[in-house]
Every structure is written in structure tokens, then in C-alpha cells.
């Protein structure tokens, strides 16, 4: 069908009396050469024909920054700290990527429940116009839904109708350095600003009412291998954002910015330099290209005024020979003072990682009973296949339990340190199938949820083991620095699969698993009424029963789900927003899929009139 449409389009172009390129006049050419005009004015039979791309290129560029004039949502006040601290006080809102500062992605709404969820229907859908992984977790405020897409496009949409009210396309350089596609997982809201962290490592503030740029700050020079893909975490007047680049040998860090001005307040490097504590965990000068990016969102504990952030893999990924040692603070959880960015303590999940087991999946601030005592804890389904529970006062290891079905890389000792099986290390000619594969387990590119009443974390999980091929690492600034490659044997054999698993946070037990045909790469939102919403690579939006995992509703959207769904109420009616749109490269890598529909769509579902 797509091919037929393209053929028809080409035919129509061919029937045009003049090449479209002739419309461009000398002096107005974007390339500014008089030659174009001269050639166009007197077409010569000996000139090579314009190809398709040239013809499209010859059209005047369309504006991509659409400002809302008059401004929208002027009837609601700026988003203040009180709103951000109690985001569900008004259920028409979804204000944080993680739902709240504790990263629960769990909504109190009860207008949608196990009885009526089967009647959900499409309220509206919206084409993003972009391809290659639509990973958004939308923000909803004042009746407006703010969604970022791949390639750093931001859409302000009427949450009731889907009408585009403003749009911003961030100008991106062709040599940008994303690890794994041109993704963005969401914008944040603070005051009157919508905050976008970009693939060329900038932080941009857009006026939520008009889409106009308020400020635009460089985080760091992207050409060294940096990018930013997460939604910043807003705590008070600060927006905290970390960088990606663990596949480029960067020096990882996360920053705090003043949301009013875009001025950087502090930077926390995740790899020490000479003379700093932890540098002794890197052989030689390997810390200089040590990686440990901070490419996902952390959490904030108001009780103790502590910011928690997580870090990714050391560089190079798959060959640790030149970086002997634990490689602090890669694959770790860091507790820092949000005022100064100074570290209070750390816990490292996977020391000296050579499997790309970034330690930066979604963290949940939870409270658990232990020996009759309430313990403030942090729970995480780590990419290495273990579900961790740590004391969030001091980082003390409490427990790790396996949440994946297939696991052979290590056991976890009583101190929380992995005991690695000797045969799982990457090899020039590997023969040992290692589980989990390099994408996890669970991955930082999508987020689960936590239901505090049920004490259950809902984890979208990958089961795709790999061979780890080791190679020689060559560092060249701005080039991938990975020193190996995963051989995705399960994906190639179509043996990769996935599930959503409900993990009892207090005990680590698996309460239920909802098995999926392909690895799960979409996020989760849950509700107090006992629903778990997610989506799979087959392109289905799903509602599961939080108590049993039973599928209560499904809707085929078309493109595989890579987004983080959110729920909210408008005019008393429940709404579910979920993005559809995956990417053949990651789907082939992880699941062996090669027929992926292009494009991205945002779907919003609601209940019909009673």
C-alpha cells in the first residue's frame, strides 16, 4: 500500500509540466547560488535529472515552530512547588515523568475500574509526523497535553480534542550523537515553562502558553558524544537533568538548572578525576573515558531533602581490560543534596560491568515493614535482572531477588555484590549464552509503576539472552567507544519474548506474570482502582488486572509501544494517553522483528457517554 502511494506520488510529479525545482528563483535559493537559478531558467536536456530528494528540497521550507497566538491556558496559574509536591491534588493533571517525586507512576483516579475499562474507546489520535521510537510520557496541565516526540519535537495539544495548539521542532545537527535512536521520553513543567532536554545536549524552556522560547542553555558540547533524552526532574526551582553518552566514552554527569533563567546551579560528575575518591577504581587513566552516563530520571525524597540519581555503564561497554577495578560510580545509585549536588552516599549494582547493565532503570521510593520496623527504602528492577531493595537513608543493601525468568550471569552475595559466573565474560569467539542480554531485564528507556496499597511494582521485562563479543577498543572523541557488540542470538532465532511482572516489593516474590510474544519495551501506569496500563511491541494498548495480570482490555494502535502511558480526568471522565511508534533497528536488535510500521501516533482513550 505504501509502495503504491509512493508510485502514485512519483507519477503525479512526473506529470507536472516543470520540475518543482524550477520554482526556486535565483537569489532566494537556500543555497544562495546563482547557478541554480540560471540552470532552472533554461533547462538543458544534457543536465542530469533532479532526483526525488532534490525536488523535495526545492520546495520552500515550511515553518516548524508554530506559536500559539493568542496564548492558550491563560486561565490556570504557573505550576508551583505545591502542585509539584502533590501532583494528584487535581486529577486533571499529570505533572511529572514519574507521576510524582517518588517515581511511582501511580494515579489515584477511580473513575476507570475493572468493570468499565473494557468500554474504553478512542477519544482522539494524533500523528506526530516523526519516526524512530515515540517514547513520551506526556505532561497534562490546564487542559493541555504536552508531548515530545522523536527528533525533539514538542506538541501542545488540546487534551479534549487533540487539536495542535503550538509546536516546536528543535533544530538538530546531522552529526548528533544519540546512542540508540533520536528519542525523547518527555518534557517537564515548572512555572510557565515546558522543559525539553535535547539530543544535541541542550536544555530548552518553552512558554507553556505560546510555545515561545524562554531560554535555551547548552548542557555540554554534543560533539564529544553527549546527548540528552530524559525529562528533567523538577524539584523546587531546580530542573535536574543528566546526559547520555555511555557508548561514546564521555565523562558522565547530571546538572541542576534554575528553571527561571536556565543558569546551571551545579554539576555532579559520575566519574571521579585524578585525586578524587573513587578514581582508584579505574586502572591507569581509564577514568578519562569512563562513561557512567545519567540518562534517565531520578527521584526526590522530600522527607530527608535528598535527590536520588542513577548511572549507566562504564565505557567502553564490552571490554573492561583497560579499566580494571570497580569503575565507580558507574551502574550506581547516588544520593545527593539537591541544594549543592554533593554526594551523601552511593550503592553500586554492577561493579566492573562488561554487559552494558546500566544501573539506571526507574527507581521507586517505597516504605517497607521489616522486623516490625518501617524502613524507608528504594526499590529498583535493575537492568542486570535483579530486583533490589536498599535503605534510602544510607544505601544499605537489604535484598535482591531475580525478576527475570532467565538468569545466569551472577548471583548476589549477602553484601549486595554480584558473584559473577566466570564463563559469562565477553570473548573474541563467545559460545556462552548470557542472560539477561545487554538491554536487560528492564531498561531505562521505559518505566514501570508502583502501587503502594498493593505493595506491587509492575515491571515490563525483556527475555532476550545474547552472546557478548569482545573486541579492541579505540577511543576517538565523538565516535562510539564500545569495544564489542552483542550477538543477539535469541532475537535472531525469534526466541526473545517478554512479560509484565508484578513484584511484591516487601518480599521480592513474583505475584503474577503477563506473558507477551515479544520483549516488553513500553512503560506502565497503574491506578488505585486496580488497573495496569501498558503496551506491547505488537502495537496493542493493554489494561491488566493489577491483582491477577489478566488482560481486561486491548486495542491495536498499529505501531509498537515504546511510550510511557499516563492517565488523568477531564470533566470527570477518565483519559488514558499512550504513544504508538517503534523503530525497526531496536525491534530487530531485541526481538528479531523486521516489519515495523513507520510513524508515531498518540492515542487518547476515554469512556463513552453513560
Amino acid at each position, binding site marked *: 500500500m505504501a509502495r503504491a502511494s509512493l508510485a502514485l506520488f512519483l507519477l503525479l510529479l512526473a506529470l507536472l509540466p516543470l520540475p518543482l525545482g524550477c520554482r526556486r528563483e535565483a537569489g532566494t535559493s537556500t543555497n544562495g547560488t546563482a547557478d541554480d537559478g540560471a540552470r532552472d531558467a533554461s533547462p538543458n536536456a544534457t543536465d542530469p535529472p533532479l532526483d526525488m530528494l532534490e525536488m523535495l528540497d526545492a520546495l520552500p521550507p515550511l515553518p516548524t515552530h508554530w506559536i500559539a497566538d493568542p496564548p492558550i491556558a491563560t486561565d490556570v496559574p504557573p505550576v508551583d512547588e505545591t502542585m509539584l509536591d502533590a501532583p494528584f491534588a487535581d486529577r486533571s493533571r499529570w505533572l511529572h515523568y514519574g507521576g510524582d517525586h517518588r517515581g511511582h507512576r501511580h494515579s489515584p483516579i477511580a473513575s476507570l475500574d475493572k468493570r468499565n475499562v473494557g468500554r474504553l474507546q478512542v477519544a482522539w489520535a494524533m500523528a506526530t509526523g516523526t519516526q524512530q521510537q515515540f517514547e513520551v510520557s506526556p505532561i497534562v496541565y490546564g487542559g493541555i497535553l504536552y508531548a515530545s516526540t522523536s527528533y525533539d519535537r514538542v506538541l501542545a495539544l488540546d487534551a479534549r480534542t487533540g487539536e495542535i495548539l503550538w509546536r516546536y521542532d528543535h533544530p538538530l545537527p546531522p552529526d548528533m550523537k544519540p546512542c540508540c535512536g533520536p528519542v525523547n521520553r518527555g518534557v517537564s513543567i515548572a512555572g510557565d515553562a515546558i522543559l525539553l532536554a535535547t539530543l544535541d545536549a541542550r536544555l530548552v524552556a518553552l512558554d507553556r502558553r505560546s510555545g515561545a522560547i524562554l531560554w535555551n542553555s547548552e548542557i555540554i558540547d554534543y560533539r564529544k558524544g553527549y546527548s540528552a533524552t530524559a525529562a528533567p526532574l523538577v524539584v523546587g526551582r531546580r530542573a535536574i537533568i543528566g546526559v547520555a553518552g555511555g557508548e561514546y566514552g564521555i565523562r558522565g554527569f547530571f546538572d541542576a538548572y534554575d528553571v527561571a533563567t536556565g543558569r546551571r546551579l551545579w554539576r555532579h560528575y559520575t566519574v571521579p578525576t585524578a585525586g578524587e575518591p573513587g578514581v582508584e577504581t579505574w586502572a591507569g587513566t581509564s577514568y578519562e573515558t569512563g562513561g557512567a552516563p545519567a540518562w534517565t530520571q531520578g527521584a526526590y525524597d522530600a522527607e530527608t531533602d535528598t535527590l536520588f540519581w542513577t548511572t549507566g555503564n562504564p565505557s567502553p561497554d564490552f571490554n573492561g581490560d583497560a579499566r580494571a577495578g570497580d569503575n565507580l560510580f558507574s551502574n550506581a545509585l547516588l544520593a545527593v543534596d539537591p541544594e549543592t549536588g554533593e554526594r551523601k552516599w552511593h550503592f553500586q549494582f554492577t561493579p566492573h560491568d562488561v554487559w552494558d547493565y546500566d544501573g539506571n532503570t526507574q527507581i521507586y521510593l517505597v516504605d517497607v515493614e521489616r522486623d516490625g520496623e518501617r524502613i524507608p527504602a528504594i526499590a529498583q528492577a535493575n537492568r542486570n535482572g535483579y530486583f533490589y531493595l536498599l535503605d534510602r537513608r544510607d544505601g544499605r543493601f537489604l535484598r535482591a531477588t531475580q525478576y527475570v525468568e532467565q538468569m545466569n550471569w551472577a548471583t548476589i552475595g549477602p553484601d549486595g555484590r554480584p558473584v559473577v559466573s566466570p564463563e559469562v565474560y565477553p570473548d573474541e569467539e563467545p559460545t556462552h549464552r548470557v542472560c539477561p542480554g545487554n538491554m536487560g531485564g528492564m531498561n531505562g528507556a521505559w518505566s514501570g509503576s508502583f502501587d503502594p496499597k498493593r505493595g506491587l511494582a509492575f515491571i515490563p521485562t525483556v527475555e532476550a539472552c545474547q552472546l557478548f563479543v569482545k573486541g579492541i577498543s579505540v577511543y576517538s572523541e*565523538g565516535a562510539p567507544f*564500545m569495544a564489542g*557488540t552483542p550477538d543477539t542470538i535469541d532475537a535472531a532465532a525469534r526466541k526473545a519474548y517478554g512479560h509484565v511482572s508484578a513484584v511484591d516489593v516487601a518480599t521480592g516474590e513474583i505475584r503474577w506474570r503477563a506473558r507477551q510474544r515479544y520483549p516488553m519495551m513500553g512503560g506502565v501506569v497503574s491506578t488505585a482502582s486496580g488497573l495496569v496500563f501498558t503496551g506491547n511491541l505488537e502495537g496493542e494498548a493493554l489494561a491488566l488486572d493489577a491483582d491477577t495480570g489478566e488482560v481486561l482490555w486491548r486495542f491495536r494502535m498499529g505501531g509498537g509501544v515504546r511510550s510511557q502511558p499516563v492517565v488523568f480526568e477531564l470533566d470527570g471522565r477518565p483519559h488514558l494517553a499512550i504513544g504508538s511508534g517503534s523503530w525497526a533497528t531496536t525491534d530487530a536488535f531485541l526481538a528479531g522483528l523486521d516489519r515495523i510500521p513507520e510513524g508515531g501516533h498518540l492515542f487518547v482513550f476515554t469512556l463513552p457517554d453513560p
Partner: protein
Amino acid sequence: MDVAMRCRPFPSSRPVRSPDASAARAARRADAGPRRAHGPRTAIGLLLSASLGLALSGCGASESPAARFARDPDSLKRGRSLFVGTCAAYCHGLQPGVRDAPYLFDCDWKHGGSDEEIFATIRAGVPETRMQGFADRMPEGDDDVWRIVAFIRSKSECR
């Protein structure tokens, strides 16, 4: 790898060259040897083009260093390790399939498929893309680049 096989044209070589590849070719031509002050220019030009032609076809006495490395198992092994560690990663896969960067063993070359062109692309990179030039960064310099070329040739699916 025997020379006769390598003399075949590469099937899907595309005529389109990146500006960078042209520049690299020009630079190679400039480097081909010092021009003599005496002697007819045309003859030198002919000689140069003849030797360039031979180099590009991989035949004759001026075989590329890659062909030499291709006969040495240790060099091929090192070429593979360098490829796996530096080129494969999440970019150029060892197996065909959907990847973010071109599969390099199907002989469908975007920036020139001769040994010298591949060598030049690895060194100079491709502007406006994520293909970074490695210039002199390989541990054993140009020899390592030629070993990578030799490995790519050895795994080529259209020999």
C-alpha cells in the same frame, strides 16, 4: 583471498560519492608520489592514472596493503577484533539485519568500495553523519585501518 576474485567489479557500487570521498581521492592522488620537474606531464598523468587504476582494481604489483594483510591470519584476526570493537558496536552489524548504520559485507558501498576508498572513509569519516573519522587513532596506525579493510573483504558476501 586470491587476486583473480578481487578483480571482479563490486556489483552494487554506486556512482554517488560523498564530497569527502572525492577530497580523499584527490588527497591520495596528491600523495601518490612527488612530481618530477622534468619529463612530459601527460606521461606522468598516464602513469598516475594507470597506477591508480591498478590500485583501485586491486590487481598487479601495487596491491593494497589490505590484500597483503588478508594473507596473514593474525592480521585478519586483529582486523576482526578492531571491527568488532570499534565498527560493530551498535552500528555496523556482523550479521545482516536492520541496523542504524550500513551493513558492510553486502558490497553495496555508499562511499566507494575499493580498498583505498574504504581505507579513506575509515580515516576521514563521512561528513553530516555519525561516521566519525578515525584518522591516526588506531593503536597501530594505518596498518590497523588496512587490517579492518582486510577483514571486511574476508567476510564479504560477494567475493
